[in-house]
């Protein structure tokens, strides 16, 4: 059951145009690689075959680093493992069509399994981006060392040579590598433009927000690492066949850094940039080998440094920036059609309070920040949490959404103890959290941000970009009240501060939570915006039965909208009562008048 709320011009024409453009591009590229050997000399065929295989790797680096923000030096190792799996099987077991088939399977499967391990090592709750980079550095070093000490099994430093792979010949390998490159590139382009693919950019922009939208970002990153390890393994298989030799340097971290350099110079986050960068630089360096070996590396190195500092998104980004500048003046396209969806989540009624806090405690070392907090919140309540700076309000919000934060006591949400749960699991219980500083995705559009909020409930497609956006009607109402419904295809970085706050609120509501936690939602907003937010909050709680907990300094605002007020002071709950009780109490006046003694 869904009904169209906002009539906007259909976007499908544009989507179709883009798909057609991509199709034509792919066909041209295919024609180029199929007919290329007829016009190229053997030297170029040979060199370009390898360059194209490297370009497949560069695409995987780009997806990881350019899109998902995971700086990796490890793709070389997956590539090397795939190549070695192929070469070792063909050298030591023998060569037949069946065995080549087995080699292909192994070349993908072994890196996939290693990718799973590396992913598991790199990404866990609380892991830092730099740690993933560290692992991606250690992994190829270990693999290379194993190959060196492998004796005749791996050929040690000399590598393996003289096995018989696919009987394709120069032109055949050129075409095969080219076709694989086109397939991987098109696949990557389709994926990164799909609704599902935008998750990578969302993770890069703001991983915390992703987790608080109920997405298991760690699992997504592990999955990405695993799949791309398989792609790298496939490239390794191609390489082992096409070049007829594998060597330790194919797996090393120096090659891994080279891939990053090519990706950076081509333009990270563009898929095509790294492809062109890799093919261009690799071909040039082959042509220039012999002349100026050291100067060549010097130039590449210097170019790389300048690029990282001045133009972090590479040459391709410069081009798109220039073209986009022209486009910015054109009216933004309407974006997807908003569709109201019936709630899919939390239909079950719960018994007892929605939130139940029992003697919550939080301490840093010997310093207690929260002590003996006991509190119940029922559906439909709008509870405001007030207290001077340092009273522990934000800490308490954090404890409610991260089961690893508390030092003592029990928090139950919808009856379940959240001890040890990570944010995305708590979100799944029906908690939405709005941060103090608007936490949204700067490089996504408004519509894409909202779609991220639905991703955990309604798995997005990894192939298409939908021209419909299904949201709970409450979220749509927020958009309409704040005018964001007319800005669906606008990039978030162009929104005003207040618009971002509203967008975040809409995203949180789109999660279909039972309870919303809001940390100073009105800070820095204009009077009008404040009133709008207040109206929305009242409606969510009074009419739709959400529970809301609000941290707020603006006592007038609190008085207007709250059904209950809780006062925290020096980590303790000092008062819990109706608006009138609290506002008129002696304690609150003392606290807020600056008197520190209760």
């Amino acid at each position, binding site marked *: 059951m869904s009904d169209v709320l906002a009539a906007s011009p259909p976007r499908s024409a544009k989507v179709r145009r883009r798909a057609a453009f991509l199709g034509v591009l792919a066909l041209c590229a295919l024609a180029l690689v199929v007919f290329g050997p007829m016009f190229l*000399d*053997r*030297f*170029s*065929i*040979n*060199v370009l075959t*390898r360059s194209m295989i490297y370009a497949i790797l560069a695409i995987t680096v780009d997806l990881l680093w350019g899109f998902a923000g995971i700086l990796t030096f490890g793709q070389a190792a997956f590539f090397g493992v795939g190549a070695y799996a192929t070469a070792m099987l063909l050298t030591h077991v023998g060569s037949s069509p069946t065995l080549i088939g087995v080699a292909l399977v192994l070349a993908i499967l072994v890196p996939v399994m290693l990718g799973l391990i590396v992913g598991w090592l790199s990404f866990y709750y609380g892991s830092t981006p730099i740690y993933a980079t560290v692992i991606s550095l250690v992994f190829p070093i270990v693999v290379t*060392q194993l190959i*060196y*000490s492998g*004796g005749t099994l791996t*050929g*040690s*430093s*000399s*590598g*393996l*040579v*003289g096995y018989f792979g696919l*009987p*394709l*010949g*120069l*032109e*055949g390998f050129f075409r095969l590598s080219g076709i694989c490159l086109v397939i991987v590139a098109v696949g990557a382009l389709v994926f990164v433009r799909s609704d599902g693919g935008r998750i990578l950019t969302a993770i890069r922009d703001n991983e915390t927000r992703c987790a608080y939208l109920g997405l298991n970002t760690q699992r997504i990153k592990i999955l990405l690492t695993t799949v791309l390890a398989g792609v790298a393994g496939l490239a390794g298989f191609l390489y082992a066949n096409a*070049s*007829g*030799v*594998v*060597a*330790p*340097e*194919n797996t090393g971290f120096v*090659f891994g850094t080279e891939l990053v350099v090519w990706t950076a110079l081509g333009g990270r986050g563009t898929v095509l940039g790294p492809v062109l960068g890799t093919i261009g630089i690799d071909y040039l*360096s*082959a*042509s220039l*080998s*012999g002349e100026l*070996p*050291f100067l060549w*590396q010097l130039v590449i190195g210097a170019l790389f440094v300048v690029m990282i500092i001045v133009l972090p998104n590479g040459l391709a980004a410069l081009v798109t920036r220039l073209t986009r500048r022209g486009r910015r003046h054109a009216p933004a396209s309407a974006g997807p059609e908003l569709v109201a969806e019936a709630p899919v989540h939390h239909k079950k009624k719960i018994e007892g309070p929605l939130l139940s806090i029992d003697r919550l405690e939080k301490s840093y070392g010997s310093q207690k920040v929260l002590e003996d907090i006991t509190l119940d919140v029922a559906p439909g309540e709008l509870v405001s949490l007030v207290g001077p700076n340092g009273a522990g309000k934000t800490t308490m919000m954090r404890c409610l959404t991260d089961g690893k934060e508390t030092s003592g006591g029990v928090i139950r949400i919808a009856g379940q103890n959240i001890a040890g749960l990570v944010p995305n699991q708590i979100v799944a219980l029906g908690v939405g959290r709005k941060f103090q500083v608007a936490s949204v995705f700067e490089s996504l559009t408004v519509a894409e941000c909202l779609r991220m909020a639905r991703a955990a409930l309604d798995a997005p497609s990894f192939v298409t970009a939908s021209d419909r956006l299904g949201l709970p009607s409450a979220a749509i109402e927020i958009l309409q009240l704040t005018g964001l419904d007319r800005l669906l295809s606008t990039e978030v970085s162009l929104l005003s501060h207040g618009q971002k706050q509203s967008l975040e609120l809409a995203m949180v509501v789109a999660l279909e939570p039972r309870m919303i936690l809001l940390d100073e939602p009105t800070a820095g907003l204009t009077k009008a915006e404040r009133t709008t937010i207040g109206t929305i909050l009242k409606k969510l709680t009074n009419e739709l039965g959400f529970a809301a907990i609000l941290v707020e300094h603006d006592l007038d605002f609190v008085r207007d909208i709250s059904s209950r007020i809780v006062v925290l002071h020096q980590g303790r709950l000092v008062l819990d009562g109706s608006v009138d009780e609290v506002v008129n109490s002696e304690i609150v006046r003392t606290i807020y008048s600056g008197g520190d003694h209760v």
Partner: protein
Amino acid sequence: MKIPSLLATVTSVMLAGGAFASDDPIRIGVPVGLSGANSVVAPSVVQSAELAVEQINAAGGVLGRPMELVIADDASGAAGAQKAFDSLVFQKEVDVLISMETSAARNAGLPIVSRGQVPYIYTSFYEGRSCNPYLFVNAWVPEQQVPPIVDYLNAEGAKKYFLIGSDYSFGRGMLEFARSYVESTGGEIVGEEYLPMDGSDWTAIISKLKASGAEALITSTAGGAPNVTLTKQMRGAGVDLPYANLAVDEGTAKNMGADAAGILISASYVTGIDSAENKAFLDAMKAKFGDDLRTPNDLSVPQYEAVYLYKAAIEKAGCTDARAVLDALDEVSFTGPRGTIQMSKQHHAPLTMYLGQVQDDGSVKVVGTFKDVDPGEQCPKL
């Protein structure tokens, strides 16, 4: 198979095309490690090739045609070698490849050599048993280098040997042979240790060596840095056993100063060889390169001789056609600085080996000469 036959046609047309134009130079491809690990010796290799070509051209060339060198950087590794070989074989369309390279680079180049059907003379000593119809080797293998050293140490009374190497094909290959040779001559191996090629901390290995009661030490590290770090750290730890180094060249030993004194080296070339050919060669090098001269060594002199061996093979074959040249290559010989060289034994060459000892002033004194040492069974199928 359609494609290979097409390739064969292209290649033969290309080669035949060369044969018709008599002033068209004969092109010698030299893929060499101008950058990377080999870049220390590469310049000396290029220099000796340049001298050979200059001398041959000054004497009227080969079959009335001049020779020409085409140098390409293989970056001392597999990936670079692929580019260099591709460029030389398919872009520059050279008639032959003559070069000193790492084993990884050689292996990476071989499939390209087979595809392009170009003769390839490998001029670097190596761990042995690289076999390919297009590949000839005029430098030593373990079977030629190790026995003189072990025999000498045995004669000095050493029975207990300790082996230290870098963990790579050459290091392991040499020491594997050394172990079997030591054991076959009645000695005992009391330790065998390897460090990764880029490793620079030999602490644990040196402590083991000191505790092992060894009477002699044989090392086979990667050339350059590992060799120097090991020697420095050993001398720092006070190791003064009889010490044979399978991988140090004369120039490096000279530069190492006092730390190198006493080291035994075994080579097919040392500058001190007392022959007319060697004197003429050294004089010509000095005259051509003057102050820029890189000391000729066991890696650069085979390069010089290989150019002459190739010349002899063309003259015997009467053309530069690959098949005919390959057939002639093991039948021709050349007498150069290292004596008379013929790649007659399964594409490898019997060589005269010299045992040298580094003196306190860094010079190398020849303490033994071993005539025409056989390379043994390298490629029985060729």
